[in-house]
């Protein structure tokens, strides 16, 4: 019985289907808000679905060389986005599966979906894909440390590195954004490269490296990457809600908070041009990392 329940939670609610529906609406919200800020009409609400159905209906070209890693990368990307969902307490203070230290598992799975981009990129002789992969690799070195430190700040304050426990602590006291605003800022900044958004979208820049590691993909495999990016719009803002913005007791509140974070990310995305790779690296090492460390030291000292 429990296996059926876990499969239901993984594939239907709040897993694949639910996360994809909500994520594609948040992705559409991002595109629409960006269009309105540029004085455009913007795409209709079904745009993400139309894109994905079209890609699924097209021919999928697979090269003869490096076939294994070419097929592995999109699968890894979608697993890395989907697996954390059963560990996240979405819409209630309890997760489907919860154990001490599941926050670390969530962060590792999220790294997997970025690692998939590197695998897709270096497994090719195309210079665009290789440059995109190296951009992703160097960005990951810069942003993973502040991301993990600020996530650990929330975990250490709650006394237990478990996402469900973090939400319960926040519900009984206050949201961590009020205790640790600097860690929240560092986490929010690290979400941008995690989702491949401006100003840190160097690996997937459309105008410089023609979507980088994704340049060689077509048809159904590209659709898998599109589904991944739609799910990322749900999972990563959802993780921020759980870690810093107080979690939630019902799903409506959770989605409302997700929409708020999506709007913050969209405004940052609209307002800034793309940074160079060295500028991004310096930004994370000189600004995001120190403010994450300040709150990490504060939580260790118990202030």
């Amino acid at each position: 019985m429990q296996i059926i329940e876990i499969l239901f939670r993984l594939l239907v609610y709040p897993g694949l289907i639910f996360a994809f529906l909500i994520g594609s609406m948040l992705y559409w919200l991002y595109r629409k808000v960006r269009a309105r800020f540029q004085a455009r009409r913007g795409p209709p609400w079904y745009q993400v679905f139309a894109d994905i159905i079209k890609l699924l209906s097209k021919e999928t070209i697979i090269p003869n060389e490096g076939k294994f890693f070419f097929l592995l990368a999109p699968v890894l990307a979608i697993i890395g986005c989907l697996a954390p969902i059963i560990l996240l307490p979405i819409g209630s203070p309890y997760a489907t599966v919860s154990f001490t230290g599941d926050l670390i598992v969530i962060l590792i799975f999220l790294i997997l979906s970025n690692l998939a981009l590197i695998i897709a990129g270096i497994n090719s002789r195309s210079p665009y894909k290789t440059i995109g992969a190296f951009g992703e690799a160097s960005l990951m070195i810069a942003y993973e440390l502040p991301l993990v430190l600020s996530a650990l700040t929330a975990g250490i304050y709650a006394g237990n590195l478990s996402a469900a426990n973090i939400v319960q602590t926040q519900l009984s006291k206050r949201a961590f954004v009020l205790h640790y605003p600097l860690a929240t800022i560092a986490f929010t900044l690290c979400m941008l490269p995690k989702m491949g958004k401006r100003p840190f979208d160097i690996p997937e820049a459309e105008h410089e490296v023609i979507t980088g590691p994704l340049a060689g993909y077509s048809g159904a495999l590209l659709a898998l990457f599109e589904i991944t990016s739609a799910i990322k719009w749900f999972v990563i803002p959802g993780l921020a809600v759980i870690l810093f913005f107080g979690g939630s007791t019902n799903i409506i509140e959770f989605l409302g908070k997700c929409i708020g974070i999506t709007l913050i990310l969209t405004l940052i995305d609209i307002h800034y041009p793309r940074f160079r790779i060295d500028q991004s690296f310096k930004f994370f090492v000189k600004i995001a990392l120190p403010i994450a460390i300040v709150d990490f030291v504060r939580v260790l000292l118990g202030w």
Partner: protein
Amino acid sequence: MPLKVATWARKKSPWIMHVPCGGCNGCDIEIVAALTPYYDLERFGVLQKGSPRHADILLVTGPVTTQIQESLKRIYDLTPNPKMIVAIGNCAITGEIFAEGYTFAGPLDRIIPVDAYVPGCPPKPEAILDGIVKLLQKNSEKGI
């Protein structure tokens, strides 16, 4: 029924790639103008892509020169099916003033199959949009 969904999705999400083939740059500028916020192609689901693997529609401009001929064939083969080719401007259709030049290898429909022609020297952005919309309507009536 699944085919109907696919036809609908292809009509609603045409991703274009711009392939300049040795023209005078006039048509290229008009294509760029059609992509600006004033015309806002994204409301029809159009996105400009840099890789032929992502593209559904190739917008080809210019008389095809001997140098770019092979690359154009290669780009055509790299594009996944179903694909549509639109010839933009008089040069791509007939060769216009370049037709008697020694580098002329075209016109375009002698090298790759063409689905729609947009005449003009250069065609207005409205004309380019009209050509793409008519092509999409024709294809969705045929059920491609």
